[in-house]
């Protein structure tokens, strides 16, 4: 941390939005991640279920999150993720938001998601520690 932090004024916390998008009611994973992120000292905004891409964009922009974690278990990632990314670009929020996808994503879809701007895809069985470490190391530093 910088000298400002030592001066006792600045308090920076990693802010995350955990988003459930589309017709997908499986939120156990999202809840577990939200809880783990909280315990790791992050501030977690949880979107709730069945959100439209526009809602996720609205939330990500208004909450000014450093990290957007999209949980998709419906298989619709190839249509939903691009919509979210386009929305973020529209509000100039794409460049400095770390975008993660969690859930069930076939290996062959991953390169395409990453090309779009997703930083990492975490499949089932990813150790929580690994995800938290990834966020800590890659969350954009802003001031």
């Amino acid at each position, binding site marked *: 941390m910088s000298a400002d932090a030592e001066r006792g004024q600045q308090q920076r916390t990693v802010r995350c939005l955990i988003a459930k998008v589309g017709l997908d009611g499986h939120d156990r994973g999202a809840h577990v991640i939200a809880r783990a992120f909280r315990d790791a000292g992050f501030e977690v905004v949880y979107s709730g279920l069945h959100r439209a891409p526009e809602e996720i964009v609205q939330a990500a*922009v208004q909450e000014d999150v450093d990290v957007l974690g999209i949980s998709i278990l419906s298989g619709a990632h190839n249509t939903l993720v691009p919509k979210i990314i386009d929305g973020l670009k529209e509000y100039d929020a794409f460049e400095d938001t770390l975008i993660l996808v969690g859930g069930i994503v076939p290996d062959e879809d991953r390169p395409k998601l990453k090309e779009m701007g997703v930083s990492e895809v975490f499949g089932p069985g990813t150790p929580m520690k690994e995800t938290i470490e990834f966020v800590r190391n890659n969350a954009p530093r802003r001031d």
Partner: protein
Amino acid sequence: MSHAENRGEARVDALVSDLLDGKHRALARAITKIENRSPGYRELVSRLHAHTGGADVVGITGSPGAGKSTLVDKLAKAYRDAGFTVGVIGVDPSSPYTGGAVLGDRIRMASNVGDMDVFFRSMSARGQLGGLSTATSDAVKALDAFGKDKILVETVGAGQSEVDVVRTADTVTVLVQPGSGDDVQMLKAGILEIGDVFVVNKADMDGVNRTVAELEEMIHLRDNPGATLDSGHHGVDAGLPKGVSEHDGTHGDTHGGGARDEGADGSEDADDGWEPAVVETVATTGDGVEELVETLAAHADYLAESGMRERKARSRYAEEIRQLLRNDANALLKEELDRRGGAEALAEAVADRETDPYAVADEVFEPLRECVEARRGEE
């Protein structure tokens, strides 16, 4: 002045002009800056101040699960339908152990999907001593300067800092749910003396009438300890003389005193003609929201007509000045303390009976006092 400082200033310039231009991203970024107290945040808030004063600020508090978020959602919808723009700040507690937080108020914001003119922002109580109310009121300023007509500040009414937060609002709304305990519970919670409007939410549940009756009785007792009691019905019946301790703003340190506080200065502001209203709502269906909107409007009118709005604003600014000065002085004292080895090391010496806390405090404080006095002498 360094290059970095120049750049920082240019960034604040850009942020302020983008925010005033109505860019959502800039508003979001400004609030982040305020929350993080990033370099330049003071400059930012100072610059925004001139553009504030246009919004009606409503604070909403109540125990967890009372239905605050759902009600805020419905209120925001009602305001949007009436053509107003809305800003919402939802404050959630953070973990005292990790500092992390789950900010869940957004889940309930279902009626305003995709409507960017409802700007909802979650904030966590980051364990900043007395800083939460400062951060929140600064964030309110950002929303106000952005041009929001109505600003709703939602917080769990569980502690002093939360109570301080809603007190930065023009109108304080307290949510109560039926069957949440008897009148003694409400007295204990200390929520009675802060509310301008009381909402009994979940009014489709059992025990509503009793809760409403108990609330009204206590409001009447609070208002005019000596006057004739007029209990038995509810609604907006203005005109009874009353006193509300929070309105005069000079009791910043005493409002935690619950009933004692009320007894001590309950009759000072005899010209204060607002009788706290009790409104019944069912937030999930939207029942009673219209009445609540009307009641809030009535309170806003009352504030404007009675000059109370101005007075409240003044006392709020006075408190803000005091708070900022306290924070600054604390920061300076902390530096000074650290320079002398830190409080722990000094405590060690106190425990060993080498010195005592008063002597340490004098020693640390004396040079500061001397500086100030020397400066005063120069004037």
